[in-house]
Structures are given as structure tokens and as C-alpha cells.
């Protein structure tokens, strides 16, 4: 419990800056909504006939830019990227920092089992990604309600944010997993960067090319996309299951490996 609180306290400052970044993105992104809303309507019909790959290049997608929530969908794809970076860094850093800061020996002399240590760190990670998610949701809600008040957009927003939370969970567990299996911090950093870049670039490539669609299971950025969530008004159960499996798998592997981990000091 002490460890959990300590971890929360030490991530307080970075969480503040990440939230600030999120708020800034939302405000900067949504501030332009008004001016686009009027021109959006007439183009929508035409856009629907446009091939998917060209929509992707033009940066529009199938989102309806004439409604606030549709416009928010565009901002959302950027928010999810930031939240994922935060999550993978949180996860990886939770494990790696004890060794970079040379505090691992001190921590492990405490009367705590390794499983307990990992659990506390896991809980702290989940708490801080949840906090980031909640802050983002609340700010988005306030800004969206300034444009118009309709119950349907609120439920859509909730769905989007739940989707974002699942993606955050995947990346956090991936970060923890990468940090536990790698011996050196240098390697952890390199692999985490690669994982993030590859999944992100893959999601871009899938948008561009239909034949690659089967690869969508490999990149969490494709699991809960604004354009499908806003149309279906629900999260895809297949991807929910997949998320659950991935998170459970990474977490249980991390427990197994962390128990026998040699410290690198």
C-alpha cells in the first residue's frame, strides 16, 4: 500500500504535464470546429463516394465533420496516440526506474514479495492512466457541451473514452512486459519505441490499403476507432475480447518473469 501511494506520488508531476498536453490538444483541436461546420455539410455526400485510401490521405475519413462529436472524432485519433505513449512509458518506467535510479536493492530488502511489488506498481500504473483518461473525458465533455447539448453525443463520448482506456491498458501492460523481459534500460527504450512506431505506422498503412485489413488485429490503434464507434454506437466485442486476452497475457508473463528477474545494477 505504501509502495502504491509512493508510486502515485512520484508520477504526480508527469501526470500533470500529460494532462496539460491533452487539454491543450482538445482545446486547440476543437477551437476550429465552428468554422468548418458550415462547409462540412455539402461535402459529406461527396466524401462518402470517395475511395477509402484517398480519404485517408486527405485526412478526413468517414467522420461527419458537421457534427461536434464527428469533428471530435478527428481530434480523438490524436488523443489516443498521446494516451498510448503515456501508457507505454508509464508501464516501462515503473519497472526500469528502480534499476536506473539504483533503488532496486533498497526496495527488495523490504518485507514485500516480488509479486506484491509488481502488483502495487501495476495498480499505480492503472490508476494514473485512468486519471489521465478521466481528465480527458471531463474536459472533452465540457468543450463538447459548449457546442451543443444532446444526450447522444455524451454516450458516444463515453464509448470513445472507454475504447481509449482499453488501448491505454494494452500499451501499459506491453510497457511493463517489455521492461521485465529486457535486461538493460537501453534495450527497453529501443524496443518500446519500436513497438510504438510499428503499431502506429501499421495503422496508417491499413488505412491506405484494403488488402492489409487483416493485419488490423496486430495494432491496438485499429481496435477502437472513432469512425466505427460513432457509427455502431458500441465497442466491437471481438476487439474487447482480444484486448482482454492481450492484457491478461502480458500481465501474467510479467509476473512470471519479474519473480525470477536478475537485478541489473
Amino acid at each position, binding site marked *: 500500500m505504501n509502495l502504491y501511494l509512493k508510486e502515485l506520488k512520484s508520477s504526480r508531476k508527469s501526470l500533470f504535464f500529460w494532462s496539460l498536453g491533452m487539454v491543450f490538444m482538445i482545446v486547440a483541436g476543437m477551437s476550429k470546429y465552428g468554422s468548418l461546420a458550415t462547409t462540412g455539410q455539402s461535402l459529406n455526400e461527396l466524401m462518402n463516394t470517395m475511395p477509402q485510401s484517398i480519404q485517408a490521405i486527405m485526412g478526413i475519413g468517414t467522420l461527419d465533420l458537421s457534427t461536434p462529436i464527428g469533428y471530435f472524432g478527428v481530434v480523438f485519433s490524436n488523443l489516443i496516440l498521446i494516451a498510448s505513449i503515456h501508457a507505454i512509458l508509464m508501464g516501462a518506467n515503473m519497472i526500469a526506474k528502480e534499476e536506473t535510479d539504483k533503488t532496486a536493492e533498497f526496495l527488495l530488502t523490504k518485507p514485500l514479495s516480488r509479486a506484491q511489488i509488481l502488483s502495487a506498481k501495476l495498480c499505480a500504473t492503472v490508476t494514473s492512466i485512468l486519471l489521465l483518461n478521466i481528465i480527458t473525458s471531463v474536459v472533452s465533455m465540457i468543450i463538447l457541451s459548449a457546442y451543443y447539448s444532446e444526450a447522444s453525443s455524451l454516450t458516444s463520448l463515453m464509448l470513445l473514452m472507454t475504447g481509449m482506456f482499453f488501448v491505454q491498458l494494452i500499451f501499459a501492460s506491453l510497457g511493463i512486459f517489455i521492461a521485465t523481459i529486457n535486461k538493460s534500460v537501453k534495450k527497453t527504450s529501443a524496443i518500446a519505441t519500436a513497438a510504438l*512506431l510499428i503499431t502506429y505506422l501499421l495503422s496508417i498503412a491499413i488505412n491506405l490499403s484494403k488488402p492489409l485489413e487483416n493485419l488490423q488485429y496486430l495494432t491496438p490503434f485499429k481496435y477502437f476507432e472513432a469512425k466505427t464507434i460513432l457509427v455502431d454506437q458500441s465497442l466491437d466485442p471481438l476487439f474487447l475480447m482480444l484486448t482482454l486476452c492481450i492484457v491478461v497475457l502480458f500481465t501474467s508473463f510479467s509476473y512470471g518473469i519479474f519473480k525470477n528477474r536478475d537485478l541489473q545494477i
Partner: protein
Amino acid sequence: MMNLFRHELRVSRNATIIWTLSLSGLILFFMSMYPAISSDAKAFQNLLESYPQEVLVSLGISLETITSLLGFYSYVFTYIVLCTSIQAVQLGLQIISKESRDKTADFLLTKPVTRTSIITAKLMAALVLILITNGIFMVVARFTLPLFSDQSFDTSTFLLITSSSLWIAFFFLFIGMMASALLSPIKSVIALSLSMVFGFFVFSMLGAVVGEETIRYFTPFHYYDTAYILAHGTYEWDFVWIEVGLILVMGVLSYFLYRKKDIY
């Protein structure tokens, strides 16, 4: 100083090879999609014929540039720049912070070299590595483009677009170096580098969607606007001078700070 320079090159050799190979693979992978996209575009253009004239004017022209070979290349290139920027900022952050992290700073500083020449040697090594990565990428890209399309393209426009990755990488190298002179001991290089580069990147993507002009001044990704280069065949020199100014300021500041810095 020469030894240090060579040592730095050797230390980062593997990472540079991996970056270069991945970038080359990436451009091959992305450009291989071009034939499908260009046929999509043709089909769509035929469909557009039936629309009123004003829609065609507002959309058709931009569509043509966007789906041309260089147009698609410059779209894909955005993501290449994202990667080269991450490489550059990590090299920049390493310049000063690596010695502290690996506890080699005291060893290095007992050598009969001044701090100025230490940082110069390291900076030169980083510059060379960035030059090599971007240079090889440019050659690969030059030979990749004709593989997937028989459209001819303007070589000087191609060079202008492709070399912008180098200029943006320089910006990130210097911002990384300044951050490590300012902040170190840096606890986590990856956290700082990813949040800096992706921060600027997401910001510039938002800027592109909302079409806000002032945003362009705040993110180096917009200093070399590919749409402008495609249309005019030149850089926007205002932004080039802004970048040169920023690099000079950051460079001088880094030297100044490092000379007086407490080393842990």
C-alpha cells in the same frame, strides 16, 4: 578529440544501421501501395465528372496533386520524418546525458580535453550519423519511386522534399542537446524523446486538420510544407530562417550551459 569522435560513431553504429534499414524498408512498403491508390484515384476522378463545376474546382485539383506520385510520396514522407526526428532527438539527448547515466562522465572529464571540445566532438558525430541515415534514405527513395509508377517526377522537387527530413532532424538534434544540457541528469531518455517528438507531431497533425496558420510557427514539422514545395518548387524561406535562428540559439545555449554544468 578525434578519438572521442570516432568512439561516438562506433557506439551508435548499430542503432544507425537499424534506423537506416527500417526507414528504407518503410518507404518500400509504403510506396508499394501506390499502384492501388493511383487506380483508385483514377476511378474516383471519372466519377467526379458528373459533379458540378465548383465542386471539381475545390476538390479536383488538390486531388490530382495529392494522388500524383510525388504527392503520395510526400504524404508517406510525413511518417518518415517522424522516425528520423525520433532518431535525431535521441542522439541529441544522449550527447550529454549518456555519460551521466553510464557513470562515465568523471572518466571522460579527467581526460585532457576541454568541455567545449568534448561537446563539439559528440555533436559532430551525431551530425555525421544523421547525415548518413538521411543520405542513404534519399538514395533508396530515389530508386524506389520509379519502381511502382512510370510517372516521371521532378528531381529537384523530390530532393527538396526529401532533404527536409534532414533539416527537421537537425532541429530535433539541437533541441535534444539543449534539453540534456538543461535538465540532466535525465531519468528517462525515451520518455522525453517520445513525448517531445510526438507532441510536436500530433500538434502539427491537428494544425493540418484545423488549417490554422499560426500553428505552423510552433512545430518544425510544418516548416517545410510539402504542399507548398510541390506547388512552388522551393522552400518558404521565412521558416528556414526561423529554424536557422532557433538552431543557433539552442546550440550556443547548450555550449554555454554545458561548460558550467555540475556533473553527477
